[in-house]
């Protein structure tokens, strides 16, 4: 009994993301938790591993007209259009509060050009309270043929390398799943000096109202997130784990402790929770408790010992589409 209790107190949930130590591996995903401060009345921000705030450009953006979201089976599409207050207002209006609330703040950085990524990062580097930058390099403009940063290996490399040169903050590119081989992007990110990679962003998708024959989203296309995508995201995390040595922040449909553990066992050092915030905003304590309980039951002292622990000895994939 004494032993078990001692053991209990030893469970170590911390996650190391490059130079950054998170108290636990649970991060609120960008775009799904506002600027964090919106949740202060309901969630103790200091109890999260980190808060990743909504994507920021240099300037304010209005975003797309509504409808901006639509539900799909076990998922949802969004096309918010990255409405945001811009980095300057963010550091003025919200960063001090996040600091005061004890949040570990990661900022999701957007750019229409390489320069903009660098500029936004520089502004953030000049202010106290930013723990890391996450680079949102998912196809920005699919109309012009897209494939600028997130969908081209050289584009991804350049963004990471340039931002890395401009800041001392940990740099975490966030990969899009809308590519043939996500692991090659993780590899390129590591080569360019990334401290970690985040994946996945949303899957490009569409929903049509058959009665009106019009898209359900004002923007026509949107990103699919939520439990529906989890099995694809887990696969991608697993693939990336074999491709890189830097930490992985895994996400896509996490809605329970079991889901979070699935990503960790697949190879994620930390996990982000996006869509589940919308239907279960007080999920965080449950996640921490479930993961701690798991570690105790399995007599695992450090969560980090579980990362990538999936056993695939018998892996002989021949045909998979079958």
């Amino acid at each position, binding site marked *: 009994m004494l032993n078990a209790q001692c053991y209990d107190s030893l469970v170590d949930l911390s996650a190391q993301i490059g130079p950054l130590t998170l108290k636990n591996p649970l991060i609120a995903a960008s775009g799904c938790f506002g600027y964090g401060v919106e949740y202060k*009345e309901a969630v103790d921000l200091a109890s999260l591993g980190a808060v990743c705030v909504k994507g920021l450009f240099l300037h304010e953006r209005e975003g797309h007209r509504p409808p901006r*979201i639509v539900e799909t089976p076990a998922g949802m599409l969004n096309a918010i259009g990255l409405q945001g207050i811009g980095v300057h207002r963010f550091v003025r209006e919200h960063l001090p509060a996040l600091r005061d609330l004890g949040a570990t703040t990661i900022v999701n950085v957007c750019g229409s050009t390489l320069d903009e990524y660098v500029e936004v990062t520089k502004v953030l580097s000049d202010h106290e309270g930013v723990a890391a930058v996450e680079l949102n390099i998912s196809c920005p403009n699919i109309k012009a043929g897209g494939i600028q940063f997130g969908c081209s290996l050289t584009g991804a490399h350049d963004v990471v390398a340039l931002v890395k040169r401009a800041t001392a903050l940990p740099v975490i590119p966030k990969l899009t799943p809308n590519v043939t081989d996500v692991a090659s992007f993780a590899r390129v990110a590591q080569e360019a000096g990334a401290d970690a990679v985040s994946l996945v962003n949303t899957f490009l998708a569409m929903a049509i109202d058959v009665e009106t024959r019009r898209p359900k989203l004002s923007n026509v296309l949107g990103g699919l997130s939520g439990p529906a995508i989890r099995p694809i995201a887990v696969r991608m995390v697993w693939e990336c784990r074999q491709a890189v040595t830097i930490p992985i922040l895994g996400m896509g449909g996490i809605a329970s402790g079991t889901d979070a553990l699935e990503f960790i066992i697949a190879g994620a050092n930390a996990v982000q929770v996006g869509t589940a915030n919308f*239907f279960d905003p007080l999920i965080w304590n449950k996640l921490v408790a479930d993961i701690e309980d798991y570690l105790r039951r399995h007599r695992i002292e450090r969560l980090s010992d579980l990362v990538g622990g999936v056993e695939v000895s018998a892996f002989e994939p021949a045909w998979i589409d079958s």
Partner: protein
Amino acid sequence: MIVDIDAEVMANTKLSADYNVLVLAAPDIARQARPGQFVMVKPSGSFTPLLRRPFSIFEVLRDPSGTPGAISLLNKRIGVGTTLLWDVEPAGRVLCLGPLGRPFEPVDPPAEAFMVAGGVGLAPFATLGDALIARGTRTTLFYGARRGPELLYTEWFATRGVTLALATEDGSRGDHGLVTQPLQRALAARVSSDPVALYACGPTPMMHAVWKLAAGFGRDVQVSLEPVMGCGMGGCYSCVIPIRNDGGQRHFVRSCLAGPVFNASRVVWEDLMG
């Protein structure tokens, strides 16, 4: 403080073919609720549907000692989530997050209050009516529906001392036509220096009509808007409403934080009506 309560269903009363009232044991929400605020309800434990649904807090129910112990929701069955809330049985449970959003500002005497409701837009006016009457404010409910039997809870308001001005599209009860008719008459009967606070909730075209009518009399309206809401907490930016700021510039604000109650004069109605 915003709480999430796995609330027991204490009663589910069908009012008509499509309307029911759900009573939920949610003392911590009942205690904090202010008129016009809403809750986010999870109609199913599974991922079908995935997201919660926003509902105005209809009544705040108190125990004999006057302590708030429950809230009720006025539910109109229109789709998957509201059908689940139509079907739920007493002793069942629904997750209920709240109270959320910017409430109405109840007006004090000598000002008079006009509450204008269309259909399920009645929902925020039970608590607002209570608050107004408690302040001694003379209150009229202008309330329209398609047919007479769809005019719900009129007794409830009448016994509390709220004056009723009803309208139905088929003429079966009250004015034959839209709710703006009795409202037009009432506004015309006041001189512009009479202080009147207007509150409206209902279909967007109806709220727009109320605003245009009121504006013609030089008055503003507190409208409770009903956009699709993904989270109700300011997390997702799905619920935005086009608002004109002081400089006259249009921008999108989150309805779950800056609303659901807005001053109609700020709303960019052309954009909202699409």
